[in-house]
C-alpha cells in the first residue's frame, strides 16, 4: 500500500474464482466436462463407481478402471447457503449455494444449481447436469432442476 493510493483511488484487484489445477486425473475429469460429458471412474474389476478420482479401487484394490458416462441425473443430498463469501473470488456471488448432489451411480459431487434460488433448495430435489464453460480450457459441471 503506497501513500499515492490515497490521492489516486485505484480499484482493488479483482480476485478470480479458484479453478481446478488441470493435471493428472483431474484434467481428465474436466476434459470430459469440456466435451459435454459427466464421467466418473468405474472399476473394471468390481464395477464400483468412484469420485473424486483415485488411483485404486478402494472396494477391491484393482488398478484397472475407465471413465464411464454418468446418467447426469441425481438428487440434492445437502447444501449450504453462503450468505457471506469467504473467498474474495465469490464476493460478488453471495448469497450462493454450494450443493452436494448424489448421482444415480451413487457418487456425490459438489456443485451449484444454475436455476434455483437458495431458499427453494430441498434435500432430494431431482437435478440434471449442465455444463458451464468458465474459461476456454475449463468447464464445470453444474445442475439444473429436473
Amino acid at each position, binding site marked *: 500500500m503506497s501513500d499515492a493510493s490515497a490521492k489516486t483511488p485505484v480499484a482493488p484487484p479483482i480476485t478470480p*474464482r*479458484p*479453478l*481446478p*489445477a488441470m493435471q493428472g486425473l*483431474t484434467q481428465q475429469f474436466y476434459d470430459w466436462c469440456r466435451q459435454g460429458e459427466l464421467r466418473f471412474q468405474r472399476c473394471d474389476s468390481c464395477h464400483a463407481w*468412484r*469420485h*473424486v478420482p483415485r488411483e485404486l479401487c*478402494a472396494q477391491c484394490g484393482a488398478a484397472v478402471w475407465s471413465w464411464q458416462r454418468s446418467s447426469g441425473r441425481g438428487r440434492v*443430498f*445437502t*447444501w*449450504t*447457503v*453462503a*450468505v*457471506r*463469501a*469467504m*473467498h474474495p473470488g*465469490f464476493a460478488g*456471488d453471495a448469497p*450462493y449455494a*454450494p450443493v*452436494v448432489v448424489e448421482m444415480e451411480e451413487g*457418487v*456425490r*459431487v*459438489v*456443485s*451449484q444449481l444454475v436455476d434455483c434460488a*437458495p431458499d427453494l433448495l430441498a*434435500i432430494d430435489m431431482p437435478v440434471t447436469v449442465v455444463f458451464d464453460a*468458465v474459461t476456454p480450457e475449463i468447464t*464445470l459441471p453444474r445442475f439444473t432442476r429436473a
Partner: protein
Amino acid sequence: MSRLKDRACIVGIGETAYCRAPGSGLSQLGIQLQASLRALDDAGLTPRQIDGVMPFPNLGSAEEMAANLGIASLRFAATVHMGGAAPVASLQHAAAVVVAGIADYVLLPAGWNGYSGRRARETIAMDVSSLPGGAIARDYYMPYGLTAPPQWYALIARRHMHEFGTTPEQLGAIAVAMRKHAQLNPGAVMRDKPLTLDAYLASPMITDPYRLFDCCLETDGAAAVVVTTTERARDLRRRPVSIMGVAAAQPYPADEITNRADLFETGLTIAAPRAFQMADITPADVDFAEIYDCFTFEVLQQLEETGFCGRGEGGSFVEHGAIELGGVLPVNTHGGLLSDAHVLGMSHIVEAVRQLRGDAGERQVEDAEIGVVTGWGDFGDGSIAILRR
C-alpha cells in the same frame, strides 16, 4: 493400548493473554514461546529438561522453538497433522513417547495471531497446502464456492437437521452455554458480552445453517502443556493430571467429506470407544467435557459420537441447560473457541487440567474428578483424552 493407562500425566500448563484488537504484539513464534515458558514454570521445569516438542501443524517448527528456548537435547520432535484435533492427538503420542523412554518431558505448544495476523478463513481459502484434502478441495470444492471450514461443516449440519430434526434453537443453546461460561472466566474474550437465545437467532447468517454466533472467534493467543511419566510427575511442582485414556482416528475417507457412506461417522466415532475402553470407564462417569467447538454443530455431533448421548439425540441433549455449569455435563467451562478464544484446541486441555486441579475459580465444576477433552480437525479427524485428577 491400555498399557498407557495412567502411565503419563500433564504436569504443566501455560497460556498467554487472549485478545482481538489491537493484537498480541508478539510474533507467531513469540506468542507460543511465551505460553511454553509459562507451562514450564508451572511444572517447575527448565527448558533444558525438555527433550520433546510437538508443534501444532503449520504454525512453527520444533527446531526454531528449541533454538529459542535453549532446548539443547531435542530427542523427539513430531507434528500430528490433524488440524484442531492435533493437540489432543499429540497427548497420545507424548504419553507413548515418555512411557517408552524416547523422551522424558514433551512440550506441546499451539498458538497464533488469529486476529491481528492472517485470519484463519483467509489461510484456508488461499493456501492449498493448509487444506486437509489439499488438491481435492482445490479441484472439487473451491471452484464451486465451497472454500472455508464453516461451509464444509454446514453441509453435515444441514444433513443432521434433515435426518434428526435438529433445530436452530438447539444450536443456539450451545452458543448460549459457551457464552455463559465465558462470563465466569476473567480471561475470556467474550467476558462482559452476554448472549441470549433471541440475540443468537437474530445474528446474521454466515453460511446456512451457521449464524455469526455459531462460529468460533478469531483471536490472538497461545497455550502449551507439558507431558511426562506418572513416576516423574510426582516430583514436580503441581498436582499431576493423569491421562487415563487417549485415542485419535480419522474418518473414511479422511481427505474428502462428501463421499463418506455416513456423514456423521467421523474420527471421534472410532476414537472415543477406544479411549473409554483404555480408561475403563463409561461416558456416565465423566464430570465435564471440553469439546472442540469450531462451530456449534460440531459440539453437538461430538457429544453424540463420544457417547454422551445417542446419534441424533444431540439436539435434545444440549437443551435446557444440560451442558451448562450445574447441568448433567458442563461443556467448555472456559467458554471454548466460541466465547473464550481460538487457541486451536490447546486451551481446552489447559482448562481440563485447571478444573481437575480445582483451580477454575468461579467456574469450577464441583468435585471434578474425571474430564474429557476432544479435538476436531481438518475434514473430521477426531481425538479424545480422558483425564483424571
